[in-house]
């Protein structure tokens, strides 16, 4: 029902692509991250809570339609519906039902609770396309509460020593999740890099409650950031923009930080293991929950996950992606 093409995953019966990496006619989008929502297609379709984010990514001229979670749409010869994936705001598993049964393309997803988006909902199907960004048994996330407590503790201890705390995180999803979770510890404002503001606004538009933020970019010259927490996207690291922040400790919030060598290679002071992707047990859990007779893995460690499933007696394979960098989260 879904086939691999040079432009991405294609549904011939419905004449649409899922998360295509080249411009196509109709693109059905799982979520608004850059490796899933690309510019240039004629028409886009996504889950309703994610429409705001997608609009901000694709610009005012893109033709975007959306549907609430669970609503069934007829596209050509198939029925399509969106179901919460728990990855970021508006992220969706795409269920496609046709003559060949039911397929679910889960996109990126996680099972841990996240106050900024609807929780993952298992969708029974015949073929389940799962992500495998962290598809190895070394990836297992600690409880979100303890990671957030560590982030807060790091911020406070830096503040005690007169340093600012720069936390690098992805602009869509991770930044907002941190802002929502930190509200359990404080009601202080947090500085954010200017690039993050529109995406934070998109979350607020959907009624997500976040700590108050201030742009770190428009402050008058000489503003002291000592003791403050600043959220910034990774590309800002090492740019002249950082100079204004003064003496600081830097950290990265990502599942990649689970591996000591990766954190050391990137030379962050701290690495907080906080991911919007499923860890190994959550992948296996979700594959079980889907009850599919066939599983296809994509992104990251797809080969090992597929082989592991095969050895467990499942029919499993791999779907290639244009995004080969291991652990590309955005």
């Amino acid at each position, binding site marked *: 029902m879904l086939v691999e093409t040079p432009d991405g995953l294609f549904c011939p019966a419905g004449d649409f692509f899922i998360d295509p990496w080249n411009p196509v006619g109709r693109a059905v989008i799982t979520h608004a991250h850059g490796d899933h929502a690309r510019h240039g297609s004629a028409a886009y379709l996504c889950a309703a809570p994610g429409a705001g984010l997608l609009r901000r990514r694709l610009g005012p001229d893109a033709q975007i339609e959306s549907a609430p979670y669970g609503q069934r749409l007829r596209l050509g010869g198939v029925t399509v519906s969106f179901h919460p994936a728990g990855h970021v705001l508006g992220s969706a598993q795409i269920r496609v039902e046709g003559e060949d049964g039911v397929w679910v393309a889960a996109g990126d997803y996680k099972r841990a609770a996240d106050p900024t988006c609807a929780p993952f909902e298992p969708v029974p199907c015949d073929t389940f396309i799962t992500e495998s960004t962290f598809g190895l048994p070394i990836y*297992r996330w600690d409880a979100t509460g303890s990671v957030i407590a560590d982030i807060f503790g790091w911020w406070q201890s830096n503040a005690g020593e007169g340093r600012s705390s720069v936390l690098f995180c992805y602009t869509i999803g991770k930044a907002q999740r941190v802002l929502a979770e930190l509200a359990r510890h404080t009601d202080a404002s947090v500085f954010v890099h200017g690039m993050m503001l529109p995406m934070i606004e998109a979350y607020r538009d959907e009624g997500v409650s976040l700590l108050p933020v201030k742009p770190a970019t428009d402050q008058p010259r000489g503003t002291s950031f000592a003791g403050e927490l600043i959220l910034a996207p990774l590309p800002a690291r090492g740019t002249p923009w950082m100079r204004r922040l003064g003496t600081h400790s830097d950290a990265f919030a990502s599942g990649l930080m689970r*591996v*000591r*060598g*990766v954190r050391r290679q990137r030379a962050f002071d701290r690495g907080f293991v906080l991911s919007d992707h499923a860890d190994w047990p959550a992948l296996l859990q979700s594959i079980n929950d889907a009850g599919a007779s066939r599983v296809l893995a994509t992104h990251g460690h797809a080969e090992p996950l597929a082989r*592991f499933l095969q050895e467990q007696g499942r029919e499993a394979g791999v779907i290639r992606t244009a995004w080969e960098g291991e652990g590309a989260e955005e």
Partner: protein
Amino acid sequence: MNRFAKLYDAIDSTTSTNAKVAAMARYFGEAPPADAAWAVFFLTGRRLKRLLPYAAIHDWTIAATGLPSWIIEESYSVVGDGAETAALVLDQLAIVENTAPLPLAAWVGDRILSLRTMDPHTQRERVTAWWAPLDRLQRFVLLKLITGEFRVGVSQTLVVRALAQAWDLPVATVAARLMGDWTPTADWFASLSSSESTDVDQSRPYPFFLASPLEEDVSTLGDPADWILEWKWDGIRAQLVKRGGAIHLWSRGEELITHRFPEIVAAATHLPDGAVLDGEVLAFRDDRPLPFSALQQRIGRQKQVAQMARAVPVVFMTYDLLEKDGEDIRNLPLSERRERLIGLLPPGVLRPSPIVVEGSWEALAEVRTESRTRGVEGLMLKRASSAYGVGRKRGDWWKWKIEPYTIDAVLIYAQPGSGKRASLLTDYTFGVWDQGELVPVAKAYSGLSNEEIAEMDRWIRRHTVERFGPVRHVEPVHVFELGFEGIARSSRHRAGIAVRFPRMLRWRKDKRPEEADTLENVRRLLESATER
């Protein structure tokens, strides 16, 4: 153990040297002396002899988790560290309710060291029971200790600074007390912190003074007459210590190598007592140095020392005198130390390293070009007025090395690095042409910038022809200029040669793979190396 694991974590979760030193100083102030003694042992990079092979940990991890072996290997290629891979995977086991936590000294003394005498079955029973109540961090540290691979991002210099800071002692005092052989006990740790000067252990060498590579133009050093120039030998840097009639030879890695070189010991019996020499152990025949690979045969052998001593004779090329008549003379100017040295050396195996004298830097640069034919690596430049310092202090001692051998070779295999490069494909194998085929000649890991590494990593992932486990066979497209320090015949390598310290000098994006060197060209380098 918990306190030590926390210290490890504190050191590991900062890139600031001061924060690392502060964390260690706090630990040394708080921990019981018996634990602190072991902490010094491990932090300074000393290891328990590998008690268990990583393979055992691997097998027990499989048994404990029910995971297939290959997925642990696949994980290892991402993590780049066996103990860490196991600790991360073992995270799926619940932590068994904790009994009374055990201090580090008891962990080592009562548990870890007792592994030596156990049969494999008991080892497995014990270790898997030990790790049950530990959290991930402590499991990781335990596995590191029992595989003898504990490494942490501090140098001995930093540990010395932390100890000095904890007790408010001079750095040099602590540094001297940490040299040589010692056993990590509570008493030893107490003596380390003593404010009185104790009888220095008879065998103890001084901290080595190290030279820095000369990066500026040599003319910036001022008048050549202010400098003492020597050849830079390609051997093993060592201190020869004679005190109380006993003779000890210490390598720069602070390993005792006395028994490997009986001819040096024999010659040292003619030295006056209370003398410490700094020099280079060098394979030497017919008045010229042999390549380092010859010396390696002397290091590798435990047995047949006498037989090897005939096959590969060595000398101790002496360039400094640190102690005379039992008196520490490191603060005298080098020129005076050299004078005293010459009067001391008996003829024969203990040779004075000759001083190279020329009037101008231009003339010295000219002499330096003879390095390769003389079998040396270049010149050492030491300020005549310099004291013998501690560690690598820039300004007084420089090494002015010659350019290494270079070839152009094609990237043929890549695999993930270890440690902090574990998620990147950074370990490359290069080939040169032999009858239309690329034959591997060298492996290299260093020399590229982080941006180039990232670019190469992306390229390799998209152009992998074939995978053998973690090793990727890539399309032969990229040419690199490789530099290396030495070249020798080798029957263990397919190309029949082995190169020493290979590294990437340049990514030759301007060259096509057909333009890379041939095996014949490389063999010619070998011939010119052996003729010398």
